């Protein structure tokens, strides 16, 4: 057992660190949940892409460097430690791309991945509906067969990034008569500016339009934008939810960097007599380390041929609750300044509050942990 990286990995780390030191904007970009900030973050994606740092784990033909999971984790560590901007293309890169690698045709990959890597096309997810949240399989938005494609109708909601994004992906009911509701669903991609699409931005808790409702009225989707076989949408979507909950959505680098900023804040402003607060800072340090080590163990298992399964639910519960605790500790250190909406910790705190809700609520994750990892019987939710 060892935690030391090879010289090759360390050389990769050094290259990433050097590039980031030269290119990370000196002052933070405006919030990516605003029109101006979204545009600035899109430019940053182009900057990353120009030097092949936007999707390091992808094959070179799509704009990546073809690196393994270990190097991706190292890149993330350096990325967040450098204080680099949030990733406006996150939904596409961490949710849609793994699905394309597993289930799309070569033609689809060649068409969709490069503009995703460059930020030219930013993707939004379209999973939830007003009546289908945790019980996603009850969704009713439908795709009806038409000449050369499908017509989408219905309503999607809580669609992250959709206020300013270009395209979206989701699952739609194509066979309302399927014997079982998980069947008869189809995974497809559509244009958010196509005729028949109405995007209504929704203000997040702080008022920023971080997500949107999508009203779809006979929106045409060509056959080439269906991923996998019609009717297989549920299986395809579920095969990559592990990515969202686990490794590729929230890498440890993010939390190591945040814990580092927190300890710096504590050294600067912490009252040495306040041992209760001191203990919470220590917990944040230990929590980031625990998450990092858990991830290295997972990456080792993965390298040895293991798969990411229900364990990703442990991950999701851990990081989402850790993230809130860390930000609450920062706010408590700030005292009266915690209230200032433009403070360094305010927006990240607001963002952290959504963690236990998105990517499958933590209640659903705990059910998965109990049933699939502990073997407890299914029951009423």
């Amino acid at each position, binding site marked *: 057992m060892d935690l030391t990286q090879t010289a090759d990995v360390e050389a990769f780390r050094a290259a990433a660190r050097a590039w980031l030191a030269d290119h990370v904007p000196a002052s933070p970009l405006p919030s990516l949940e605003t029109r101006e900030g979204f545009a600035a973050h899109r430019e940053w994606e182009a900057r990353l892409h120009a030097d092949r740092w936007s999707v390091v784990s992808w094959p070179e033909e799509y704009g990546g460097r073809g690196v393994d999971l270990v190097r991706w984790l190292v890149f993330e560590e350096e990325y967040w430690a450098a204080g680099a901007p949030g990733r406006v293309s996150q939904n596409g890169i961490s949710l849609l791309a793994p699905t394309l690698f597993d289930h799309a045709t070569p033609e689809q990959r060649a068409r969709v991945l490069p503009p995703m890597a460059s930020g030219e096309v930013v993707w939004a997810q379209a999973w939830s509906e007003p009546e289908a949240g945790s019980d996603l399989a009850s969704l009713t938005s439908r795709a009806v067969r038409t000449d050369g494609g499908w017509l989408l109708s219905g309503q999607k909601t809580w669609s992250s990034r959709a206020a300013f994004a270009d395209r979206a992906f989701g699952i739609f009911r194509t066979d309302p008569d399927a014997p079982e509701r998980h069947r008869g669903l189809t995974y497809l991609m559509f244009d958010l500016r196509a005729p028949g699409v109405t995007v209504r931005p929704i203000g997040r808790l702080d008022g920023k339009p971080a997500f949107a409702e999508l009203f779809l009225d006979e929106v045409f989707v060509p056959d080439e934008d269906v991923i996998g076989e019609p009717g297989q949408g549920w299986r395809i979507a579920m095969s990559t939810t592990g990515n969202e909950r686990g490794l590729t959505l929230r890498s440890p680098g993010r939390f190591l960097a945040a814990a580092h900023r927190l300890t710096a804040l504590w050294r600067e402003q912490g009252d040495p007599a306040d041992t209760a607060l001191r203990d919470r800072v220590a917990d944040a*340090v230990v929590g980031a380390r*625990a998450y990092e*080590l858990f991830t290295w163990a997972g990456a080792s298992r993965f390298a040895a041929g293991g798969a990411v399964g229900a364990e990703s639910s442990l991950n999701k519960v851990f990081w989402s609750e850790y993230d809130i605790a860390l930000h609450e500790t920062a706010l408590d250190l700030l005292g009266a300044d915690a209230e200032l909406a433009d403070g360094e910790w305010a927006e990240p705190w607001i963002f952290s509050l959504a963690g236990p809700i998105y990517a499958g609520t933590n209640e659903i994750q*705990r059910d998965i942990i109990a049933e699939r990892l502990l073997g407890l019987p299914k029951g009423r939710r």
Partner: protein
Amino acid sequence: MRFLPTDEQSDFARTLRSLLGTAQVPAAVRAWADGEYGPGLALRSRLAGTGLFALAAPEAYEGAGLLPLELSLGFVELGRAGAPGPVVESAAASVLLSELGDEALAKRFLPGLVAGEAWATLTLPGESGGGPYALDADAATYCFTVSGAGELRPAAPGDALRSTDPARRLSRLAPAGGEPLAAGPAVARAARAAGLWARLLTAAQCLGVAEALLERTVGYVKQRTQFGTPIGSFQAVKHRLADTLVALEFARPLVWAAALSLAPGDVAAAKLRCGEAAYRAAMTALQLHGAVGYTEELDLSLWLRKARPLRDAWGTPSACRAEVLRSLTPGRR
């Protein structure tokens, strides 16, 4: 980077688990609590047969070399089985004697500890992570104490003090007069190493205690029926157990990393999280068993009563948090 136990390490843990699984450990723990040490000492000999105690002593003295990772994996199994006796303290004494570099002392004590013919207990000064009480001094073959001035002496146990875990027998140690066994900076250094190992192994033991409590509770809620259905199908029950598993699984890699580095900050982090995982598992086990979990008759009580003292032994959560922050290098990313 391969942050997983090797097949050999996993096999060693499995061997211990199967040995302990058939050794009637709960009966030995109850006997130990009554001051009957026979079954506990018999278990000690069988454990020695796996090479467990050799992992804290150099080869020159019948040991296998100092192997903190293998020993930690072994201590997870001891915790899981609830094994009685001064296991942590014996290993810490073994490390102390190994690190001293005094051949005569090492020859005198180590082979017996390695062979499972002797157990040791000890107290260390506060800066080495020690507390005021020695564990199981009346059952130990050797009692040692290291003073704040860096003197290692044999010691005699004072009156026994009852622990909230009856299988843990506490006493203060009175150092023997005359010449110390060893003295000086080397003793202080060796005591710090011993304290660090004691903290690491207690963390590993806590992890095993948490595993045992979770496993027993999962088993119970699957078979206990109320309102016509197993209580394990209720979300309120499931979610408590899920949280217990999350705490446990995120504590485990901290033990591995601490065993790899033996850095004080890493060891403190492991002890903090494992101690809390064990205590949390205990509170969950107690609540989900209901009234029967509150009885001493149910074997669950053997682990329930261990969780709290182990959480505090060789480094309270507060002391561990302070160590974590002390160990941070300012300016490091």
